[in-house]
């Protein structure tokens, strides 16, 4: 079993803004975790979130000069009727470094960026089958928010949503 990281191991991890040169590693890491290659998606994400701006953050974690994780988030105002808040919508850690404190350091860094921008609340959304990541966010203190995600299969409705005749 992998041992939880001690403080020395955590201090060997650094977090910085992602650079264009990081793209290949980001794509490979995501592909390793999700099983789906999404090069265009990550190229566009890095373009939109990678140039350090006050409201958008694309951060990578490095250990021994090797990228071992990344986190992406931004400040969104009045999203779903909520006041301006930080949203984390991607968090990936190299499976070989899990329980090494990588996700915690990245999450703390992005939360600090949000705080510096005057934000008081951070949100995320997660598939309820993704227990590993949900357990991580809960371990950081996140609780169920006031919004409930809803969805429907458009193919289930031949005509208009709500028309069940």
């Amino acid at each position, binding site marked *: 079993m992998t041992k939880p990281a001690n403080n020395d191991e955590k201090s060997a991890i650094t977090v910085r803004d992602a650079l264009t040169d990081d793209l290949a590693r980001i794509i490979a890491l995501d592909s390793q975790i999700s099983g789906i290659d999404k090069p265009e998606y990550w190229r566009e994400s890095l373009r939109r979130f990678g140039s350090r701006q006050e409201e958008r953050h694309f951060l990578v974690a490095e250990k021994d000069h090797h990228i071992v994780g990344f986190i992406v988030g931004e400040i969104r105002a009045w999203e779903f009727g909520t006041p301006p808040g930080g949203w984390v919508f991607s968090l990936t850690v190299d499976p070989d470094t899990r329980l090494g404190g990588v996700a915690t350091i990245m999450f703390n860094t992005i939360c600090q960026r949000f705080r510096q921008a005057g934000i008081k609340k951070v949100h995320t959304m997660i598939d309820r089958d993704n227990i590993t990541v949900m*357990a991580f966010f809960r371990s950081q203190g996140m609780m169920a928010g006031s919004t409930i995600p809803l969805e429907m299969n458009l193919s289930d409705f031949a005509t208009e949503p709500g028309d069940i005749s």
Partner: protein
Amino acid sequence: MKLQRSSRLALYSVLELASRPDEQLSASDIAAKFNISLNHLAKVLRDLGRARLVEAVRGAGGGYRFCGNIRRTTLKDVVEIFEPITLHDAGGFEPGDSTEFGASLAVVLGEIDDIALATLDSITLETMLKLTRRIQKQAVTS
């Protein structure tokens, strides 16, 4: 959502023991803190022992101690020892289940179950102890 009494006693017990990893607590210590029946608690501790979450230390100064992994053990792991987590169909077939409304109701209740299950499965004992400390801190500062 309401948990059965055994599940609640079990959660209180493992949390109390996990929060004091260097100590052994007697069943009467735990029963007194939570104002619960010693007999009932003894049965719960026995089941927790079978599940290898607590162990009894014999001899003078003996008692119970938590022997699981607080970073891995979830609320679901504990509750499941005492009751089925999926609530809506736990009681078997109910009158009306096979009707059109019964089928629709099953979909809605299943949605509630899925959320409850994900919640219990994603909260570890370590997270609960952190939450407890945070709530205590907020109570002191407010």
